C-alpha cells in the first residue's frame, strides 16, 4: 500500500534526512520525500497499520529535523 502525505519542511537537506529517517521505521517498505512539492510518499509493508506506522515516522522525522511537519489525516 502506498500513501502520500503533505509535509512542511524548510530545507532540501532536511527533506533528505526525513526520507532517510522514514525509511528506517518498522512497517515502512520505502519512503520518498519531494522537497519541491512538499510531499512524502510512503510505501507500507504488507499488513502494516498505516496510521500507527505514520506516528512513528513522524516521531523519527521530528528527531532528525525538529522543524518538520507531516500532515496525517
Amino acid at each position: 500500500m502506498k500513501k502520500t502525505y503533505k509535509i512542511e519542511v524548510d530545507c532540501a537537506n532536511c527533506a533528505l534526512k526525513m526520507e532517510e529517517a522514514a525509511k528506517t521505521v518498522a512497517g515502512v517498505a520505502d519512503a520518498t520525500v519531494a522537497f519541491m512539492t512538499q510531499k512524502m510518499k510512503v510505501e507500507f509493508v504488507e499488513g502494516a497499520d498505516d496510521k500507527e506506522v505514520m506516528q512513528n515516522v513522524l516521531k523519527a522525522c521530528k528527531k532528525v529535523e525538529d522543524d518538520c511537519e507531516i500532515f496525517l489525516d
Partner: protein
Amino acid sequence: MTKKQKKVLYRIIITAVLLVILHFVPDLGVFTFFLYLIPYGIIGYDILKKAFKGIRNGEVFDENFLMAVATVGAMALALYEEIKGGTGEFTEGVAVMLFYQIGELFQAVAVGKSRKNITALMDIRPDYANIEKEDGSLEQVDPDDVEIGTVIVVCPGEKVPIDGKIIQGSSTVNTSALTGESVPRSVSEGDEIISGCVNLSGLLKIETSKEFGESTVSKILDLVENSSMKKSRSENFISKFAKYYTPAVCYSALALAIIPPIFNLILGNPMAFDVWIIRALTFLVISCPCALVISIPLSFFGGIGGASACGILVKGSNYLEAMAKTKYVVFDKTGTLTKGVFQVTKTYVDSEWAKTITTANGAEATFLSLAAYVEGFSNHPISKSIKDAYGKELDLSRVTEVEEVSGHGVKAKVDGVSVAAGNQKLMRALGLSCPADTGVGTVVHVAIDGVYAGYLLISDVIKDQAKEAIAGLKAAGVKKTVMLTGDNKGVADYVASTLGIDQVESELLPADKVTWVEKLLNQKEKGENLAFVGDGINDAPVLSRADIGIAMGALGSDAAIEAADIVLMDDNPIRIALTMKIARKCLTIVYENIVFALAVKAVCLVLGAFGVANMWMAIFADVGVMVIAVLNAIRCLKVKQ
C-alpha cells in the same frame, strides 16, 4: 514571503543595524563580548537550538551544527584575544551567522517562488462545478461530489471540471493548459470534452462520464505532482554524497585544529592553537553542502514544470535524465507519424472516359459523385473517406440494386447507370484493364457503364510536422530513427523515405514490435537510451520495454498515461525533440551546478586549510555559491519553443 520568512528578515535587519552601531563603539575589553552577544543571539538562536537538539538526538553532522561550531568557535577565539589583552574580532562570528541566514532566506524565497511559478503553470485544477437547479439558477458544488451522468453547466471563462459529453451548446475551448497548443478548438453538441479545457465563448451543458478523481485533469495533476518522487541518478548521487561528505569535513576540520599544533609542539615551535582553530572553523563554514542539495532537485523540478507548460508530462526526474541521453528513437507509424485517418489523396480520371463526359461540373466531379453514391450504403472506413472527399449530402434513393461483391468491391445502379467500385480483381471480373502503377495506399477502381473510369487513391496522411520532427531529432544528436508498423511494406517504405527515417520494419504483429525493440536495445552501447514513441492504444508492452516510453496524443487515454514515462498531450511529434532539448538543458544546468559548487568549495577548502582564505571568503563559498546555483537552477523553468 511567508510569516516565518518575514520574521527572519526582521532579525537580519536588526542584526545588521546593531553590527553597524557596534562598529563605532570603542573597545571596552571583555564587555564588548557581551555587547556582541546581543546581535549574535538575535540572529543565531534558532540555529544554536537546532544544533543542540541535533546533538542530543545523535544527529551531529548537519549544517546547523557546522554553523554553530564555526560561530561559537569564532566568538570564543575573539573573547580569548580580549582576555589576553588584544582586540578580539567579534564581528566575524556574528557576520557568518548573519550571512548564513541571508543565504537561507534567499533560498527559501527563491525556491518558494519557483515552486509557485511551476504550480501556476500547472494550475488547471477546477475549484467547482455548476449544477442547474430547477428554477434555472446555477449552484456551485465541489467537483468531487458530482456523480457520473450529472449535467453540469460551464459558462464562458470557466474551466471544464469533469470529463463528459456535450449535450447542449457549442463553443470554442482553450486546451493550452493541457496541450500547450494555443489555437482554440471548437466543440459542439455530441462531442466528448475533457476536463481542464477553458470554455471561451458559448454556454455548454455537459453530461459527465467520469468522476472527478478519474477525470483527465485529476490524473494529470496527480502525475505531475508525483513526478519529483522518482529521483534521478544525479539526485541520488547527491544524497549519498551528502551522507559521507559532512562527517568527512567535520573530522578533517577537527584534524586541522589539532594535528598542526601538535606538530608544532613536537618541533618545539609555538603551538599557535588559535590560528589553526580559526582555519578549522573557516573550513567548516566553506564545507556546507546546501548549494548542491538544493539546486539539483530544483533544476529537475524546473525542467519538469517547464515541460508541462508545453504539454509534455514527464513522470519523473529520472526520465528527464534518461531522455537527455536518447540516441535511438523508435516510432510506431499510425497515429504517431501519420494522422491515422484515411483520406482520398489522389483522384485519377481515365482520359478516354473523361472525353465522354459533357456535364457542366466536369469529368472529375461526376466521377467522384458516382463513386460516393456507389459506396453510399457502406460504413467501411474506405467508403467513408470517399464520401468525405465528395463532401455533399447523398440522396440514397438514387442508388438501386446494390450488390456487395465480397473481397472485390461493390456494384450498384446510380440513376439507372451501372457503377462498380473495387479492387483490381473486380475490374478483371468485369473484363476491364486498369493501370498498375497507382501510388502507395488503398486503390479503389471505378467502372461506369461498363467502361473503366479511373481510380481513387486512399491513404493515411503523414502529419504536417512529422518531417520536421525527424530532422529535429537528428539535429539533437539522435543516431538512428526506426519505424515499426503493422502496415504493408509499400506504405511503410513510402512513409519512411518521405520522412527520412533510417530503418523501417513493416507488416509486424504487436508482439513483433517488442522483439524488434529488444533487438535494438541489444545493439545500442552503454549510456545510450532508446525511446519508443507510440499513440499508446495498443503499444503498452513496447512502451514499458523501451528505456523511455513516450505516449502521444494521449488526451483522455488512460492506458497511455499509465504505461508511458513521458506523455505528449497533443499529437505533434515535434515535441519529442523539444523534450530532448529541455532534458539536455536541465542536465547541463545540473552538471554546471555540481562542478561549479564542488570546484569552488574544493579550492576554498584548500585555501582555508593553508590560511589563505579567511572567514569572508568562506561565507562566499557557502552562501554565494548557493545563491548562484539556485539562480542557475531557475533557468530550467524557461523553455524556448
